[in-house]
């Protein structure tokens, strides 16, 4: 049965694709599936869209997908929603905001439930991505659950990570948000048609202008008005790809260690603040600050 399924998958049978994704999400027959897609070439760009709840991830993913389709690229979307830790159930509603074009086979949308924890993506998403890439989609968009800080899993899965923020009514940008920027390659001020977009962009740029920060594109996008999508895709396309050069086991271990560090940072936020302030005041550069931070967290 499985062999038949994998053969059909190889023949670009869409129902087989849907079925295999289910098996992967349940952690079934992973080895066999991995083998089946191993022969395919790498190189399909994976773009993760992340950000806090309510910032408009689904809407933006939908707009991006439409944009890519118009440009003639086939798109697969993996939309993650949280799974209830108590019941295991999930309300997977991200499709609502995405285009509904049943005849367009160049668009594939799949909803995935992500177990709770510090992760913003579901288990085995890496293999789901491989399966979709092997199937032949030109671009894969990964929508994460509303991310908290220090979500490094996303960084390993995607070539480009787009972080969304939206104009706030408050004056201060929370320091927590800055944690999101550790994973960002592109920062999008979403809902840019709302008041405060300019101010938000200025605040973000200020934060990112701290010495030693790497180049991060900052853009304003309004899904409602359809503005900024061209520029967004350009920014994404021009990001240097992150090659995952480590072998899977080492990657897994690295991810776990990163998680531990992130948890500790969260717990020791109080003792870290003076260091952060010194960095903000430019008394240290980014590399020195990071080094000191490591000492704080490892000791």
């Amino acid at each position: 049965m499985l062999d038949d399924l994998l053969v059909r998958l190889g023949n670009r049978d869409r129902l087989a694709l849907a079925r295999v994704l289910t098996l992967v999400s349940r952690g079934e027959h992973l080895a066999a599936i991995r083998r089946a897609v191993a022969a395919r070439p790498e190189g399909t760009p994976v773009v993760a869209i992340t950000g806090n709840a309510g910032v408009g991830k689904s809407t933006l993913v939908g707009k991006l997908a439409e944009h890519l389709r118009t440009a003639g690229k086939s798109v697969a979307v993996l939309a993650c929603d949280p799974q209830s830790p108590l019941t295991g159930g999930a309300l997977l509603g991200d499709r609502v905001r995405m285009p509904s074009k049943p005849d367009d086979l160049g668009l594939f949308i799949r909803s995935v439930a992500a177990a709770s924890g510090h992760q913003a993506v579901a288990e085995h998403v890496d293999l789901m991505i491989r399966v979709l890439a092997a199937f032949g989609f030109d671009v894969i968009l990964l929508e994460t659950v509303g991310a908290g800080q220090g979500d490094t899993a996303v960084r390993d899965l995607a070539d480009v990570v787009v972080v969304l923020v939206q104009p706030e009514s408050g004056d201060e940008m929370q320091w927590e948000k800055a944690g999101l920027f550790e994973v960002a390659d592109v920062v999008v001020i979403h809902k840019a048609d709302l008041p405060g977009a300019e101010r938000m962009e200025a605040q973000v740029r200020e934060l990112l202008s701290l010495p030693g920060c790497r180049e991060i594109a900052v853009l304003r996008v309004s899904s409602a008005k359809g503005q900024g999508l061209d520029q967004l895709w350009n920014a994404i396309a021009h990001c240097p790809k992150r090659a995952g050069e480590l072998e899977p086991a080492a990657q897994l271990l690295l991810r776990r260690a990163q998680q531990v560090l992130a948890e500790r940072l969260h717990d020791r936020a109080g003792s870290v603040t003076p260091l952060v302030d010194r960095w903000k005041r430019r008394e240290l550069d980014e590399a020195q600050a990071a080094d000191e931070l490591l000492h704080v967290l490892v000791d």
Partner: protein
Amino acid sequence: MATAMDRNLWARWQQEIEKAPAAEQPPTTISGVPIDPLYTPDNLDGFDYDTELGYPGQYPYTRGVHASMYRGRLWTMRQFAGFGTARQTNERFHFLVERGQTGLSTAFDLPTLMGLDSDDPRSLGEVGRLGVAVDTIDDMRQLFADIDIGKLSVSMTINAPAVVIMAFYLANAQDQGFDWKKLRGTIQNDTLKEFHAQNEIYFPPEPSVKLAIDVVEFCTRHVPQWNPVSISGYHIREAGSTAAQELAFTLADGFHYVDEGLARGLAVDEFAPRLSFFFNAHNDLFEEVAKYRAARLVWADRLRNHYGAKNENSWKLRFHAQTAGCSLQDKQPEVNLIRVAYQALAAVLGGCQSLHTNSMDETLALPSEHAVTLALRTQQVLAHETGVTNTADPIGGSYFVESLTRQMAGEARKYFERIDELGGMLPAIDRGFFRREIAEASFAYQREVDANHKLIVGVNAYQEAESKQLDILSIDQAVETEQVDSLNKIKRDRSAADLARTLDAARRAAEADENLLPTLVDAARARATVGEVMLALADVYGRCDTAVV
């Protein structure tokens, strides 16, 4: 209240209460508000008759908007009607007027409500099913044929394409020789509640509100006796909200329309007097009465003290009520007659200006003539046989009612604060605030019902094995064919040039941010269809394709 009370008597009552058997179901209102075993002057600390109650017809209108209320003039008995073609609905209108109805209320079919034509592929199977199909001005003419719309008051329940339907109505009225200044009626035109609850949505929120205010502005200037918006809580309640949410969200919507009217350059007293409301009349009698009274109280306060309105008519909240559709059951449907009677009583004790009573078979299909007649008779018995109309606000002064009224007003004000914190109406909509609140309340209620904490006769109590088969009105599929044929003929006969010209003018007016009514009246006469106009406007405003969950 400065009433001296004997504490010994109270203590004895307290003791007896403690020994009394506990209530079978938790004693809360249907919205979940806990209710005390008794209400006394103690519940009304600092109560002042003049400021909290006053007199009917005077600020703050808690006791009603007219001095004599029903003693002077009964509420309008206005039953919804509409199905099939305009001709069939016109027949039903004549039928109802002959049986004593004093105002006409029009229900449109789903395609029309959604701004689609009868020949649109998405309209398949839906034409004329839940209301009348209106595609062009000719349908409008047929709908009101031989009806003196200068004398009767006409209500049209439509939202997303309200600006278009209003244009059709006005164009037709003028063509038939009626003076716009004489026209009385209401168009629902309340787009905000669509985004909260009913989902009759076409354009995104901002342009939708703009079009709603176009109707308000135009009618203020040219159709002064018309109520250009019926700010509705009915649908919010039908979607599962609590009574307090129904009250708060409706009033908040009202305030937003006032803000928008003012931003348009209208003086508050120019248009506020014509803002009307539409509330649900649900099962929990006293909660409903408190809701209506709190609505009047809170609206009057805001209009006078915050907006600075000087015209007393701006302070008066007038409302139409409809008995709760969501409370009707398909098990033992005749029991619905009884529910509707109690709900109607609540609306009347609450001081409504007009009332629609649902028919008992309404869960199953559009009502039969027999059921509609009984629904109307429910109101007539209430008006003429129960004596509740003999005095204004008969229930005022009840410790229970006044307590609940205060509580309800307080809850509403808390919601206003939360909406402000979110940045106002449109940001709150964008964040899904209203939808979430409603969905939570709806789910909580269903859990209560499933747990048998809230009993519904025939459903989770007093069930019967056999259900009596009611005669249900079924819609002939021929309706759709007839309507589409008629539409095709109109499209063949009209001038393509006139159509293009008027639609173009509408687009340009939209781009220039002008009031669209004048250009749409022209388009109506050029036999533009509802769908064509909406599509033309979508070129400027965009579409709202997804109802945000």
